[in-house]
C-alpha cells in the first residue's frame, strides 16, 4: 500500500520551485520586516513565527537543487538537507501559525510573495505526511461526502424548505440555463442560515436568474487549505462539472474567503484549463446590482459600524471598494478600521487554522490584533463577508467579553430591501 | 628668451595681487604663524624663521603674500656668497630675507620674525676676529694696546 514519504515530499517541494520562488529567495536579506506584518508574531512576540523562517524547508530545496552555488556546496558537503524531523518541526510553523493572509507579501521590502510560498510549501508537507490531523480529516470528508463538515444535500434541502417557508419565495434548484449558479459553504448552512434567505430575497428583488445544484453546493476547498493539488483539483472539478451541466454563465462564491480564491484564482490552474463561465464573489454581484440600480433599499443602520475585510477577498482578490459601496447604501455611521482593504489584518482563523484544533490557542492569540483594531475605532457592531472570519470574530469577541455583534453584509442588505409587490406564490397564500 | 617672455601668461588663480584680495588657506595659515611668532618675540624674545620656499603655494600666492605684508622703513643688502636682500615689512619685527646666489637666483626665502635678522648681525667669531685684527693694526701704527678688561 502506498504511503506519504519524505521523498514524495521533497519531489513536491521541487515541483513548486519556479521563477518567482527563485527570485524571492535570491532577494531575501533577512531584514525581519515580514514579522511585523504577521499577527502570529506581533501578538506572541515569538521570533519563530517570522514568516520567512516558516519557508526554510522550501528555501533549502531551492538552494540545494536549483542553484549552482547549492550544487557546489553539495560537492563539498555543505548543503543543509531537509529532513523528516525538520518537516515535523516546521508543521506548526507552516499550518498552525499561518493563515496565508498575505500581509507579509504586501510589506516585504524586496517584494517576496511569502504567502504564495507558504501555499507551495504545504504541497510538500502533505506529500511527506506532515499535515495537521484536523485538515486531513476535513480533506477526507470533503472528498468522501462533498463537504468538509460532512454536510449532505438532504440537510440543505431542509434548510431550503425553511427559507422558502419564511420568505415566501421559491429557491431554484438545478435550473438549467440559469444565469448564476450559487455555491454555499457548509459553515454558512450550519451556522448562518440567514445567508441563504438573504440572497433569495435580494435576487428575487433584483430579478436575478439563479439556481442551486444538487450535484455540488459546496464552495469551500479543503485541498487549498491543506495544500494539496489532488484534493483541491477534485473539489474544483465538481463545481465546474455542476456549472457546465446546468450551462450557467456565472458562478457565485458565497461569503467565504478561501472558497473564492480557490475557485476564482487557483481553480483554472488546478484543472489546467479556463472555465466556460465567470466566477464572482457574492459581494461583487451585489455591488454590480447596486450600481445597475437593481437594488432599492430603505432605512439606514444608525449604530457605529465597522467592517472586517476577509484577506482572501480584499488583499488576495481585489474586492475592496464593493463592500464599502454596499455599506454606504445602508449604514450612516460606518467607520473603517485604521488598516483595512489590502493592508487589513487577518482575523487569525483562515488558511485552515480554524480546522486545526491544535492551533486553537494561536488562533486566539492572533485575534488579539483584530480586537485591538476594533477597539481603536470603538465599533458597536462588526460587519464582514466570510463565514470563517465571522465565526472567529464572534468567538474571539466573546472570549474577551466584548459585546459587539457580528453580521454578514449580504444579510444586512437584505434587511433594507424596499418591499415590492411580489407575484403570488404558495408562501404568500399561506401568509 | 625675450620671445618667450613676450607670451602673455594668464593665470586665473594668480590675478593681480592686492591687499583687498581674499586670502586663501595657505596664505592665511602663514599669516597666523607670523602673528603667533610676533607674540612670542614680544613675550619671550624668541625669534622665528619661516621658510617660504617650502610652502605649497599656488601661482601668484607668494606675490600676494609679499604685497599683503607691504614695505617698511628698512632695506639692507649683504654681499656674501652672492647678494642677500633684507626688507622690513610694513609689520614691524617681520622681515623678508631673500637669499640669492651670484646669478641672482633665489637660494632661500625666509620670513624672519626678530628685532634684527640674524644675517645682519655680525657673527660672534667675527667680533673676536675684529678685536684681534684691530689690535694688530693699532700695534702697527704704534703705542700699546688698551687694556682689554
Amino acid at each position: 500500500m502506498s504511503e506519504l514519504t519524505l521523498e514524495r515530499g521533497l519531489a513536491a517541494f521541487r515541483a513548486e520551485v519556479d521563477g518567482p520562488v527563485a527570485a524571492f529567495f535570491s532577494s531575501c536579506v533577512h531584514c525581519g520586516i515580514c514579522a511585523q506584518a504577521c499577527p502570529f508574531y506581533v501578538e506572541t512576540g515569538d521570533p519563530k513565527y517570522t514568516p520567512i523562517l516558516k519557508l526554510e524547508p522550501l528555501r533549502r530545496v531551492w538552494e540545494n537543487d536549483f542553484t549552482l552555488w547549492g550544487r557546489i556546496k553539495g560537492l563539498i558537503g555543505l548543503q543543509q538537507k531537509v529532513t523528516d524531523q525538520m518537516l515535523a518541526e516546521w508543521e506548526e510553523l507552516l499550518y498552525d501559525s499561518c493563515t496565508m493572509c498575505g500581509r507579509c507579501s504586501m510589506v516585504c521590502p524586496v517584494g517576496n510573495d511569502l504567502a504564495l510560498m507558504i501555499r507551495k510549501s504545504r504541497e510538500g508537507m502533505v506529500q511527506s505526511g506532515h499535515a495537521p490531523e484536523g485538515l486531513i480529516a476535513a480533506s477526507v470528508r470533503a472528498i468522501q461526502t462533498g463537504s468538509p463538515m460532512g454536510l449532505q444535500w438532504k440537510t440543505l434541502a431542509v434548510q431550503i424548505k425553511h427559507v422558502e417557508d419564511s420568505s415566501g419565495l421559491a429557491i431554484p434548484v438545478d435550473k438549467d440555463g440559469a444565469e448564476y449558479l450559487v455555491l454555499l459553504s457548509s459553515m454558512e448552512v450550519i451556522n448562518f442560515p440567514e445567508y441563504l434567505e438573504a440572497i433569495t430575497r435580494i435576487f428575487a428583488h433584483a430579478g436575478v436568474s439563479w439556481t442551486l445544484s444538487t450535484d455540488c453546493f459546496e464552495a469551500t476547498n479543503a485541498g487549498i487549505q491543506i495544500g494539496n493539488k489532488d484534493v483541491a483539483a477534485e473539489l474544483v472539478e465538481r463545481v465546474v462539472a455542476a456549472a457546465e451541466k446546468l450551462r450557467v454563465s456565472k458562478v457565485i462564491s458565497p461569503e467565504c474567503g478561501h472558497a473564492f480564491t480557490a475557485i476564482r484564482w487557483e481553480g483554472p490552474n488546478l484543472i489546467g484549463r479556463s472555465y466556460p463561465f465567470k466566477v464572482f464573489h457574492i459581494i461583487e454581484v451585489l455591488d454590480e446590482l447596486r450600481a445597475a440600480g437593481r437594488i432599492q433599499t430603505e432605512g439606514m443602520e444608525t449604530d457605529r459600524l465597522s467592517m472586517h475585510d476577509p484577506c482572501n477577498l480584499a488583499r488576495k482578490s481585489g474586492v475592496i471598494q464593493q463592500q464599502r459601496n454596499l455599506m454606504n447604501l445602508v449604514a450612516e455611521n460606518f467607520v473603517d478600521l485604521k488598516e483595512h482593504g489590502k493592508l487589513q489584518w487577518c482575523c487569525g482563523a483562515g488558511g485552515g487554522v480554524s480546522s486545526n484544533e491544535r492551533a486553537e490557542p494561536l488562533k486566539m492569540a492572533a485575534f488579539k490584533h483584530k480586537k485591538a483594531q476594533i477597539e481603536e475605532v470603538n465599533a458597536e457592531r462588526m460587519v464582514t463577508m466570510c463565514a470563517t472570519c465571522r465565526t472567529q470574530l464572534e468567538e474571539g469577541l466573546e472570549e474577551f467579553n466584548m459585546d459587539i455583534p457580528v453580521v454578514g453584509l449580504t444579510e444586512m442588505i437584505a434587511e433594507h430591501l424596499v418591499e415590492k409587490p411580489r407575484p403570488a406564490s404558495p408562501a404568500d397564500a399561506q401568509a | 628668451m625675450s620671445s618667450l617672455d613676450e607670451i602673455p601668461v594668464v593665470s586665473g588663480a594668480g590675478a593681480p595681487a592686492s591687499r583687498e584680495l581674499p586670502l586663501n588657506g595657505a596664505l592665511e595659515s602663514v599669516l597666523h604663524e607670523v602673528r603667533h611668532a610676533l607674540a612670542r618675540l614680544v613675550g619671550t624674545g624668541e625669534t622665528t624663521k619661516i621658510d617660504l620656499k617650502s610652502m605649497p603655494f599656488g601661482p601668484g600666492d607668494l606675490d600676494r603674500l609679499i604685497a599683503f605684508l607691504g614695505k617698511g622703513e628698512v632695506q639692507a643688502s649683504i654681499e656674501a656668497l652672492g647678494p642677500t636682500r633684507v626688507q622690513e615689512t610694513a609689520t614691524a619685527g617681520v622681515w623678508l630675507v631673500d637669499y640669492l646666489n651670484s646669478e641672482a637666483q633665489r637660494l632661500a626665502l625666509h620670513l624672519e620674525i626678530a628685532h634684527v635678522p640674524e644675517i645682519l648681525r655680525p657673527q660672534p667669531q667675527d667680533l673676536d676676529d675684529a678685536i684681534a685684527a684691530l689690535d694688530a693694526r693699532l700695534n702697527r701704527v704704534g703705542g700699546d694696546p688698551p687694556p682689554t678688561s
Partner: protein
Amino acid sequence: MAARNATEKTLGESLRERGVSRRGFLKFCAATASMMALPPSMTSTIAAALEQARRPSVIWLSFQECTGCTESLTRSHAPTVEDLILDVISLDYHHTLQAAAGEAAELARVQAMKAHAGDYLVVVDGSLPGPDSNPGYSTVAGHSNYDMLMETVEHAAAVVAVGSCAAFGGLPHASPNPTGAVSVLDVVKHKPVVNVSGCPPIPMVITGVLAHYLIFGRLPELDAYHRPLAFFGQSIHDRCYRRPFYDKGLFAKSFDDEGARLGWCLYQLGCKGPSTYNACATMRWNDGTSWPVEAGHPCLGCAEPSFWDAGGFYQALSVPTSASGMTVLGAGAAGALVGGAVAALAKRRTKAEEARRQPVTVDELEQKL
C-alpha cells in the same frame, strides 16, 4: 688615519678656503636647510655639523639609464647651492662626467674603493639586468652591471639609488621587462640603500640626501620604499595648491575647458598625485619656477614603483589598469550559459518527477489520522 688629503678636510675649512665668509656660511646653511626640507631653525645645527663634516668619496654607477638623472642634477645653468654640495664631495667615478676614460677610469673606481673602504657612498642611476637574466643586456668595461654593483657596494658605507630605474626598475622594468631589469634594492640586501625616486628625481632631493649624510654622518629617515621621509613623507595631493578644488569637487575635465583655465583639480585628467609621494609641490622644478601640476598637467606618478604599468597617464586613478567592458560582457555571457544550464537541468528533472508524480489519495491521508 692616513695623512690629510682633500677628503680629510672639514667642509667648513674647505669653504673658508674658497673665501666664503661667516655670513656666507650662514647663508649656505640656511639654503641647505631649505633644500633638505628642514625647518630654518635647524640652520645653526647644520652650521655646527658642517664645520666638522668631511668630504665623502662618492662612486657613481650608471646602468640601464637614460642619463636624465645626471642631467637633472647638472644641467642647472648657474651655480646653485647643489653645486656647492657637489663641489665639496669627492666624486671619484662617474663615467659621464669624469675626464678619465677607459682603463684609467676603471682604475679610479678601484682606487677610490680601496682608499675609502667602508666610508664611500655609491650612487646608482639606472636599473640592471637581474642576476638570472642575460648580463649582456648592459655592461660597463666588460663587467656586467650586476657584478660591478656587487663589487662596488661590498665596502661601501651606503648606496643611494637615484631615479625610478635604480629605485624601482623604472622603464626597463616595465611590462614585459625584456632585460629582466631589477632595482638596486632587489639585489643589495646587506647595505643601507636610499631610494631617491622620480623620473627624473628632483635635483635638490639628490643633493639633499648627500647633504644629510654629509652633515649628520648617517642616512636620513626612510619610508617603506627606502625613500627619505623629509622629501617623500607627503603625497603630491596633500601638498598640492589645487587641493582645495579637489575638496570642493571642482575638476578640469579637459585640457582646454573652463576648469583647466581656472586652475581646478586635475584628478579627472588622470592626476596620480593622491598616490604619489614626492616633493614637487614644494620644491618645484627649474630652480623653483614651477612644477607639472602648476603647469596644468596631471602628475604621472613617476616617483612610485611600476608607474609605467599603473594604467593610462590620462586615466583617473580609480580606473582599473586593464579591465574592459568586453571582459564583463564575456564573463556575463558565460555565466548566463552556466546558470541557465543548471536551472534547466533542475527544471527538467522536476518535470520528470512531476510526470511520475503520485497523486495523494484519501487512503494515504487516512493513514495519517
